[in-house]
């Protein structure tokens, strides 16, 4: 009986160790991913602007940098804080904001990339009673890649 109990205890300890090891194997730190690169494309009507994106993983979080491609306007400092990369996918439900002029609807979708999630597409649409619906504004991250 004593031997059986000892064997059961040993099995339990082994199982706990194995689960912990699996958890560590899938964590971002041991995954080796350091950054995400891609192309940010901003579209509205006739406007198309593209930026080279690099998001570094730092101790404090994610630090994005954008380099204009072609004739794109340099991004203002206030625009850099957009969460291009984050640890979770998010809810995916649209944000509907009614205003006195009309309704603004925004949908954000993130897709998994290694241990993180990268902005796939953000689309802002507008419905104004007198004007109807017009062109959408979109921000998309194209060709996202992990840098190890």
């Amino acid at each position, binding site marked *: 009986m004593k031997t059986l109990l000892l064997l059961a205890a040993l099995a339990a300890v082994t199982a706990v160790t194995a689960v912990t090891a699996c958890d560590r194997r899938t964590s971002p730190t041991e995954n080796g991913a350091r950054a995400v690169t891609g192309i940010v494309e901003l579209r*509205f009507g006739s406007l198309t*602007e593209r930026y080279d994106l690099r998001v570094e993983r730092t101790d404090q979080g994610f630090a994005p940098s954008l380099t204009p491609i072609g004739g794109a306007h340099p991004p203002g400092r206030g625009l850099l804080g957009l*969460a291009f990369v*984050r640890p979770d996918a*998010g809810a995916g439900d649209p*944000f509907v*904001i009614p205003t006195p*002029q009309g309704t603004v609807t925004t949908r954000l979708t993130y897709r998994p990339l290694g241990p993180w999630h990268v902005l796939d597409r953000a689309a*802002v649409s507008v419905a104004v009673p007198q*004007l109807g619906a017009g062109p959408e504004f979109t921000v998309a991250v194209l060709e996202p890649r992990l840098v190890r």
Partner: protein
Amino acid sequence: MNAHFNTLRVRWAGPAVLTVLFGLAVTPRPAVAAAPAAAVAAATRTMALPCYQEAIAYIDAWIAYIEAWRDYENTLPGGTEQEIMDSARRLDQAATAVGTAGWRLVKCLAPLSSSGPIIP
């Protein structure tokens, strides 16, 4: 039973009830006036919805773009080269303004769509 009811018929009961009713009648009520429509509209504009100001800025820029687009279309048929170039420049500026406002709105909303903590 009758004796019990008779105990309630006291001399001061009638004047006391009348005094209370009179007091209630003359006590001024707090004024509950209907708020003017302009005040309601102003309150709506400044209400604390998340990213509300960014949405207002976006829709303002969007409406300006639609107006610039209509102006451009009206200029095309009989406008001079200079007029067409000017309206095209205004359309380009309006589209850029929508891009900036849209980016600000998306940046504001992104953390709110998270199901967990956002690491900036």
